[in-house]
Structures are given as structure tokens and as C-alpha cells.
């Protein structure tokens, strides 16, 4: 039994060290990214706009059907669960603000970010990882280029522009999902539901949701690219990088969500 303790301590120590190293890497990469972003702001002509448009298409328009479908279902489920509970206490009329506020403030940005992590974050990691395997990153570096300016900035701009747009669309269909359930299950007319949504969902909630969405976009693009750069050049390297990009991004999105929820609720109260 006593042999277990040193092993456990060793395991905890190694895991902690790995976590701290990971945090340091993320900080260093964020710093590099910040320098690349400053360079891009100073020389906007040097931004690879063609690639940026390609990624906007890939992360944005290509993702519209799945995003809308999932957000609609989310609204439907939330509406259904809410309707059952609200009806018990005679609060049918408050279903619209419940669904609206939950989707606009939390679930919309979160669901869209999770979909984007699965689609774009993993794809960024795999793309850069494959470029690393085929020595394209080395070629870029020996040509005197800063890879982050070439490979990360277009993805970052695309994500930050596109994710809030997707979120706004997701919010709208999510509310429609809730509206359908309210009409079918509780018999609330569409107009009444609409008016109650306007009453319960304040413009500030949209600002909160879209700001969160932009922050999530930054996390997804930067972590996806960072894991790609870190990919090992063996057979499993790219797969691991993609998996790690998804896991780390979702973890950081949850952390950011908690922080932003606290900040926004403080602002709202004051």
C-alpha cells in the first residue's frame, strides 16, 4: 500500500507540471499572435485576404445548416423542458423570456462555439499539422516568413467575423424552436410569444452573447492553430493534434464562459 503514495505523488506532480507547461505555451503563443496581429494592423495589405475569405466560407457559410439545425433543436428541447416545469407552477407566460435569455446569453454562443470547435478548430490543427509533416512550415520559416502571420491571422480574422454572425442566426432559430413548442404544447400564440421575448430579452443580452462569441472564436482559432504547430511528425501526430485542439478549446471556452458570465452579470447589476 505504501508504494502507491510516491507513485500517486509522482503522477500528480507530472500532471501539474504538464498543465503549467501547457499554460506557458498558450501564453507564449498568444504573445506571438498579438505581435502578428499588430503587424497585420500596421500592414493590412499584407494580410492574406484570399485565404481569409476561404476560411470565412469554410467556417461560416459551410457551417450554417448544421448550426441552424442544432440551435433549432436546442430551442425546441429547452422550450419543451421549460414548458413542462413552467406549466406546473402556472408560469407559461414566462417561457418566452426563459428560452430567449438562455439562448441569447448562454446556449446560442456556447452551442455555436462547440460546433465550430468540432468543425474548424480540429480542421485548423489538422491542416497546420499536415503542413508540418510535409515540411511546409519549415519551408516558410527558412524563407524568413513568420508562420503565424501567414497561417493564423487569416483563420483568426475569419473566425472572429463569422462566429458572431452564426451565433446571431443560431439565436434566432433557437427562439423559433422555443416558440413552436410553446404554441403546440402550451397553446401560446406566436405573437404573444414574440412580444414576451421582446420584453424579456434585453439588447444588452445580445451584446453579451455576441461578445462571448467573439472571445470563443479567438480561443478556437488560436488553440486549433497552436495544436497544429505542436503536432508531432509521426503517424499519429496530426490526429492527436486535432483531438487536443477540440478538448483544450472546449475546456477554455467553458472557463471563458464562467469568467464572462461573472463580468457581464457584474456590469448588468451596476
Amino acid at each position: 500500500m505504501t508504494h502507491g503514495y510516491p507513485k500517486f505523488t509522482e503522477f500528480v506532480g507530472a500532471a501539474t507540471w504538464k498543465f503549467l507547461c501547457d499554460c506557458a505555451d498558450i501564453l507564449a503563443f498568444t504573445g506571438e499572435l498579438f505581435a502578428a496581429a499588430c503587424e497585420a494592423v500596421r500592414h493590412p495589405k499584407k494580410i492574406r485576404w484570399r485565404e481569409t475569405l476561404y476560411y470565412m466560407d469554410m467556417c461560416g457559410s459551410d457551417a450554417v445548416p448544421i448550426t441552424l439545425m442544432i440551435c433549432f433543436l436546442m430551442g425546441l428541447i429547452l422550450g419543451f423542458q421549460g414548458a413542462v416545469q413552467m406549466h406546473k407552477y402556472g408560469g407559461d407566460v414566462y417561457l418566452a423570456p426563459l428560452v430567449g435569455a438562455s439562448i441569447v446569453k448562454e446556449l446560442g454562443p456556447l452551442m455555436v462555439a462547440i460546433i465550430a470547435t468540432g468543425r474548424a478548430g480540429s480542421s485548423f490543427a489538422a491542416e497546420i499539422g499536415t503542413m508540418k509533416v510535409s515540411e511546409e512550415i519549415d519551408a516558410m520559416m527558412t524563407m524568413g516568413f513568420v508562420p503565424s502571420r501567414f497561417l493564423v491571422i487569416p483563420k483568426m480574422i475569419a473566425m472572429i467575423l463569422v462566429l458572431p454572425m452564426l451565433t446571431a442566426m443560431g439565436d434566432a432559430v433557437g427562439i423559433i424552436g422555443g416558440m413552436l413548442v410553446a404554441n403546440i404544447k402550451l397553446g401560446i400564440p406566436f405573437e404573444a410569444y414574440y412580444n414576451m421575448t421582446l420584453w424579456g430579452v434585453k439588447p444588452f443580452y445580445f451584446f453579451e452573447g455576441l461578445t462571448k462569441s467573439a472571445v470563443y472564436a479567438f480561443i478556437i482559432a488560436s488553440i486549433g492553430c497552436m495544436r497544429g504547430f505542436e503536432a508531432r511528425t509521426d503517424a499519429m501526430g496530426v490526429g492527436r493534434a486535432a483531438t487536443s485542439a477540440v478538448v483544450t478549446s472546449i475546456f477554455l471556452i467553458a472557463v471563458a464562459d464562467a469568467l464572462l458570465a461573472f463580468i457581464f452579470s457584474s456590469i448588468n447589476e451596476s
Partner: protein
Amino acid sequence: MREIVAEVKNLKAGYGNRVILENINFQVFKGEIFMILGGSGCGKSTLLKHMIGLYKPMSGDVIINGKSIVNTDGAGKREIMRSFGVTYQGGALFKSLTLTENISLPLEEYTGYPKDVIEKIAERKLELVGLDGFGDYMPSEISGGMAKRAGIARAMALDPELLFFDEPSAGLDPISSAKLDELILNLRNKTGTTMLIVTHELDSIFSVADRVIVLDRESKGIIASGKPAELLHESPNPFVREFLSRSDMKRKV
């Protein structure tokens, strides 16, 4: 006295705590074709990656055109990197760009030439490597040999004085490999570019190299250096004589 283009001084290199190479010293002179030879796993590519600044050595220095690539960082290091070209084993072309766009990229970044001039230069570089008419092709649409030639064209985009080649013949059939050797010789003769080639291809040694060094995995260092023909007969190291005689025999056959 011959002008030195690249110099490696007391280089000790490896990965983590594992030493792959130590006490490496040699010079590359202007206009010559210099080959780094050795069996698999002796550290040829490791040496190349340290020379081109992708890795920092454990100790020692690499001087390119009079400047230390080891002791320079940031913009200064990128400036040194721009003064040479590198061609990689698989060509390392950017897959999302056409061949013309691949070659145009460094020109767009560093020259400020108008677009039509850049396209003309890119076309000329493709001509130089025998790929005229392939400018609009994507890297996925051409063969491995063509990708390597396109990689050479891209590496020569800024007319560097020094070109590094990492295993240029790897994965090519003997005819394509011989053609690539011919191309390297022609380019050197036409442009006067200094070439440093890492290879274990026996065929290339006598037909292309002016001088060679031979690396050894056991001793982690250079076991022979000089002209291939001289080393074939005069090297005191039996491994070197055998290595080169197999190449010579193959060439004669």
C-alpha cells in the same frame, strides 16, 4: 583565397539530451557543390536543419555569408534565412497555391515588384528547372520529381547565393534522379550558386559533388572530407573507401 559562404564551427547538436553530432567543423566555398554524406541515422538532416536555423545547436556556431545564424534571433535571423534557399525532400510546396504562386510568394513579400513582373520572374524560374507551362498546376497535380524541381525554382526565387538540398533524389527513379543531378549541375554552372546537398544517394556523388564530408553515426562526427575521387583511393578509413567504391562501381556499371 576562396570566399567562404558557409562555415560550421565546433557544432554539437542533438535532440533533448541525446547528442547526434559533435565537433563538426567544415567550410563551404563560393560556387562549389558540397555534399554531406553518410549512412542512415548519422545526422545528415539534423546537421542541415541546424545549418538553416531551424534548430539551435547545443554548442558551436554556423556562419552563413559572414553572419552567425545561431547567435541571431528575430528579424536578424529571418534576414539571414532570406539570403539562402532550401529545397526539401518532398518539395514542401504550399498545397493551396499553384506553382507560380508558390514561387511568387517570396517575391511578393520581399521585392515590391509589380504583379506582372513577379509572374514573369516566376515563369523564368520554372523554365530554369524545366517546368515551363506548369505554372497553373497545383502541387497535387504534378509528380514527385516535378515537385522537387518546383521546390528548387521556389528556393531560387530571390536568387540566393547558397542553396541547401535535403535528399534531393530521395524517392525518385534512377532516370529522374540523374536528371535532377544534371539540373543541379546546370544551375550551378549557369548561376554560380553555391550548393550544399545532403544525400545518401551513391549515384550523385561522383557526377555532381566537388567536395564531400562523410558523417558517421558511431563517432558522431566527420570521418572524411575532401574530393570524392581522392577519398575513394586515399582515405585511411575503410568505411569511406567502401562507401565511395560502391558508388564508383555503380556509376561505371
